[in-house]
């Protein structure tokens, strides 16, 4: 029954216009970045490398697809959560708003299966969005800008990664980026279990991301104890794959924290939905 309802959830997601809105918006955003870089990318590169020009000389195709993909990921990882929440925040509360939750919950399927099928469908949608992001950011950018070594500016300084040393880093980075977005998806579905309207969970998800990001960026000692446990602290962990050497301990810690967040949010949503009196 779980599989059958998961299939139902895919049918619903595929039929909703807002599902394509997310993918369309992502495509548009990346297209704008690609256009901007094609039109005036050299000025952007000069600005970034200007402080190193006294000590280093840069040769070859610096403005290549690998760098563009990195820039796109860095820019969009903050905005994609909204596109994820737009679809996943509606998965449970949308049923309540439409009234279909009555029909769904009076069928011979457990409420746990209903909740789990929505999480699975939300995860698959997030995965599709991440793969689409990867395709546009890496494949299309490489097609337009060519390939080459990747120069990354970190807090420790400049890291230059050889061309043949990049693709596996992107592979792993996209997996961690997917886990970060999955946490957003899980959070919005969890909030969706508490609401009877579509917009509330979407707005609440974004409010939580903004709040946690602000807490994470404030250099105030009172927040120091909670900062390591906020999921937003670990959403940029994909970047660690572009450090040399790769801080695997830090990445594993982030992955564990994100996974724990996902499990806790699924449990909360399940308990809430199972105890809920369906009066809508």
């Amino acid at each position, binding site marked *: 029954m779980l599989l059958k309802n998961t299939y139902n959830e895919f049918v619903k997601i595929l039929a909703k216009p807002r599902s394509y809105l997310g993918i369309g918006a992502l495509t548009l955003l990346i297209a704008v970045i690609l256009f901007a870089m094609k039109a005036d990318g050299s000025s952007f590169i000069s600005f970034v490398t200007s402080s190193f020009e006294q000590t280093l000389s840069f040769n070859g195709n610096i403005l290549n697809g690998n760098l563009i993909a990195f820039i796109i990921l860095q820019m969009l990882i903050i905005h994609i959560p909204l596109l994820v929440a737009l679809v996943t925040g509606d998965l449970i509360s949308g049923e309540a708003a*439409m009234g279909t939750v009555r029909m769904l919950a009076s069928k*011979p399927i457990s409420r746990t299966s209903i909740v789990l099928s929505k999480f699975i469908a939300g995860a698959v949608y997030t995965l599709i969005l991440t793969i689409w992001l990867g395709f546009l950011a890496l494949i299309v950018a490489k097609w337009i800008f060519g390939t080459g070594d990747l120069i990354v500016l970190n807090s420790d300084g400049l890291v230059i990664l050889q061309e043949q040393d990049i693709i596996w880093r992107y592979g792993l980075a996209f997996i961690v980026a997917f886990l970060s977005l999955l946490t957003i998806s899980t959070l919005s579905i969890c909030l969706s279990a508490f609401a009877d309207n579509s917009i509330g969970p979407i707005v609440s998800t974004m409010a939580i991301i903004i709040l946690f990001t602000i807490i994470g960026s404030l250099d105030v000692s009172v927040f120091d104890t909670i900062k390591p446990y906020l999921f937003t602290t670990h959403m940029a962990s994909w970047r660690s794959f572009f450090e040399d050497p790769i801080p695997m301990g830090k990445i594993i810690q982030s992955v564990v924290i994100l996974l724990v967040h996902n499990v806790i949010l699924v449990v909360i949503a399940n308990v809430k939905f199972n105890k809920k*009196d369906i009066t809508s």
Partner: protein
Amino acid sequence: MEKETVIKVEHLAKSFGSFQAVKDVSFTVSRGDVFGFLGPNGAGKSTTIRCLLSLIKPNAGKIELFGKSYTNSRSEILSKIGSIIEKPDFYKYLSAQKNLEIFARISGASVSKSQIGEMLEFVGLAGRGGDKIGGFSHGMKQRLGIAQTLLHQPDLIILDEPTTGLDPQGIVEIRNLILRLKNEQNKTILLSSHQLSEIELIANRMVIINKGKSIVEGEVQDLLNAQELVVHLEVDAVAKAKQVISSHFSNAQFVGETANELEVAIEKSQVPNLNKALIENGVLVFALEPKRKLEDFFMKIVQS
């Protein structure tokens, strides 16, 4: 042979915060019954029905469906029930066919696409399966709702206010559908409705609930027959008719009168003799209509 009990509700109670929606509701529905579930607005009908479908968890009391409880047999019970609660809501962005496919998949039975087509035909929506629900009228949604309840061939059908918001033609269509389910498929049907005349026409048993409590339960005709009847008469001479009635029926009471119309409260068993006495005494009877309806009975019960 005693009929199998399909629904057994005992002392059901449910509160939402400090508001007690259902205080003490009990009733029994047997196999093959068309059971009327009556009560004024706010009586607790919808809350009780939601408890019957495990949408709401009661605070107290006992619910048994097909002799089993939700604690141990939720999926088994729900696989035997088809329901419309208040109004059938569907996924507006999907077609009627896709909506039915979605609910069929989780109905606990194997339902083929051709069966869905047959069901659409049964409810008068043949050829509309590919249309999106967004363009459906309320009546079409109600009929689709009935199709959805029947997809998996349930033993028990629960219909909560199925005619709400329908025009007279829609009401007749739904009534005929329910009668077909009763007569052709021998379904057990629990029907909650504000249309008391509908209940009177369709149901064989009923319960009336008010302020969260069940007040009266039984066979519809038995409950109505136990009540005093008001007969509306249209005659050529009202004064003479009154004289005849008074002399022949000492317990008769006159409750209304116009130039050539008369209303008299009398026992149902005396109605044939009333007609006979009037005719034998030269009073021309143009119309004789028993006025006691379920509405009167309902109002009497609720107001008492």
